[in-house]
């Protein structure tokens, strides 16, 4: 366990020093801040726009960070051969995978936290400057604790994407891993459509294939509760818990398969 935590800390340190995530977080914060200006242009809709843009920025930039660093965790180590010296240390290959994953989740947690603080800061400023009468027209309060539910599910989704990136990077090149992860991210968001595929096609085989894919591929749309939160609609705690459990089970399976592949791999 200690070895896993040391590896995680080193991944975190590496990624903090790497400027890519810095720039991404900075850009996201700027975007969230500028949403305030954009909100000014649309009377009455301002707080919704800020929340929408803020949550979208957190999700998209989180995705970039997850893919950028996630694929680098293993495939770059293999490609640059830094893994040789590491694997000669008294750590097992599964420990290495879990440590790398934990490190990236830690990095993501910090980045998502920064973006969330930026979003809340803008919303706090809005709430502070707008009159009570104006605020009463909002669907949900400016500083809405329900936003946390959306951010939390975005975070679980990012954890899942990181696990996907890690999974691909255990057997393919960095570029291919990035492309595959991004591809699955897109597919994952349209996955729910596969469930209803049989209603639009006649072929039984195609319908079965679609159903099979629906069960195998991650259903990422389940993690997206931005619209509900922004419009002040209820997101039941049970839904958040179930979706989180789904995400964690999927992550556990991905990590398990990753460790199995990684444990048998030749580093030529």
């Amino acid at each position, binding site marked *: 366990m*200690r*070895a896993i935590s*040391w*590896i995680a800390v*080193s991944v975190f*340190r*590496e990624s903090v*020093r*790497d400027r890519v995530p810095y720039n991404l977080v900075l850009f996201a914060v700027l975007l969230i801040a500028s949403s305030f200006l954009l909100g000014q242009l649309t009377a009455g809709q301002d707080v919704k726009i800020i929340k929408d843009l803020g949550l979208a920025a957190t999700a998209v930039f989180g995705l970039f960070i997850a893919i950028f660093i996630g694929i680098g965790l293993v495939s770059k180590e293999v490609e*640059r*051969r*830094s*893994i*040789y*010296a*590491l*694997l*000669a*240390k*008294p*750590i*097992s290959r599964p420990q290495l995978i879990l440590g790398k994953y934990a490190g990236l989740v830690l990095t993501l947690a910090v980045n998502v936290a920064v973006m969330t603080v930026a979003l809340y800061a803008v919303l706090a400023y809005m709430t502070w400057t707008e009159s009570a009468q104006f605020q009463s027209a909002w669907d949900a309060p400016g500083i809405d604790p329900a936003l946390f539910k959306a951010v939390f599910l975005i975070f679980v989704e990012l954890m899942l994407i990181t696990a996907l990136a890690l999974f691909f990077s255990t057997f393919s090149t960095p570029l291919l891993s990035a492309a595959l992860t991004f591809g699955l991210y897109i597919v994952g968001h349209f996955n729910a459509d596969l469930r209803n595929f049989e209603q639009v096609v006649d072929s039984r085989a195609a319908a079965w294939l679609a159903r099979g894919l629906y069960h195998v591929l991650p259903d990422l749309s389940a993690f997206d509760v931005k619209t509900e939160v922004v419009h002040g609609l209820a997101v039941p705690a049970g839904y958040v818990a179930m979706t989180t459990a789904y995400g964690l089970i999927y992550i556990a399976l991905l990590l398990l398969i990753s460790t199995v592949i990684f444990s*048998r791999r*030749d*580093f*030529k």
Partner: protein
Amino acid sequence: MPPAIKIEELTKDYAIGFWRKRPYRALDRLSLAIEPGEVFGFLGPNGAGKTTTLKLLMQLIFPTSGRAEILGQPVGHVATRQRIGYLPENPYFYDYLTAEELLEYFAQLFGYGAADRKQRVAALLDKVGIGAERRLQLRKFSKGMVQRVGIAQALVNDPEVIFLDEPMSGLDPLGRREVRNLILQLRDQGRTVFFSSHILADAEALCSRVAVVAGGRLAASGRLSDILAFEVRGWELVVAGVTPAMLARLTPVAHRTTEISAGRYALELSLDHPPERVLADVAAMGADLVSLNPIRDTLEDFFVRRVAEAGSARPGQEDARARD
């Protein structure tokens, strides 16, 4: 006492080709035993199978057949790695960590406490000649400096067995001498050092025993002196006070005659001419014997010849392997 490293019939095939995969044998039934406290040189040209062997010993790759043990445990035994150090060939570490941080990180993985780590890392970096640069990120390091950091990280746990893959690579002459001294220090401390190299002078200066691999096969192994003695190619006879008449009688038995100075000649005798008979002739002629020395193969000569032999034998073997 069991061998520090035991390699038995270790074989590694790689699949090459894109569509029609065919096996390529990178290492062919290698067997070696390295005793504790030995400095063992693992020699061979590029592509001979040295790095493949080291990777198999570190379980970075898995053998097709055969087995290996380090300190009595099969390779891959995680706890045994507590007692071994490894420098990969052309090592590469993390761009954004400093030399100090990298070593601290590796020391953490060995379970050292904070105070011990700091002291150990500082001492090691001093030992390999990394000064104030230790606080620079590794991406700013030259190849030679990375190599030094690589050597330091291989020693961070005070290992009993140290594997060094081309330790002198990328180092300037001063660096090479320092690493040589470091290996000798390790030997004096009773450590086992297994190092691969294609630089034969290093092996000649450091090793108690060597193995030469070529084309994935063991070409020779043993004490350096044994291998060289086996390869005596002839004799060099230096005589003085030689008159032209004497020279005319001596020249037919020598396959090369070199005049060193007036009346003094160096004669190279082939193994067909026993030196005892020639010495008797020299004495009978009244010339003065200055010296008689065996002409041995240098390791360099041996190396080139064995590699050439392995190379010429290889096409047939390849076919046989492909059929397997």
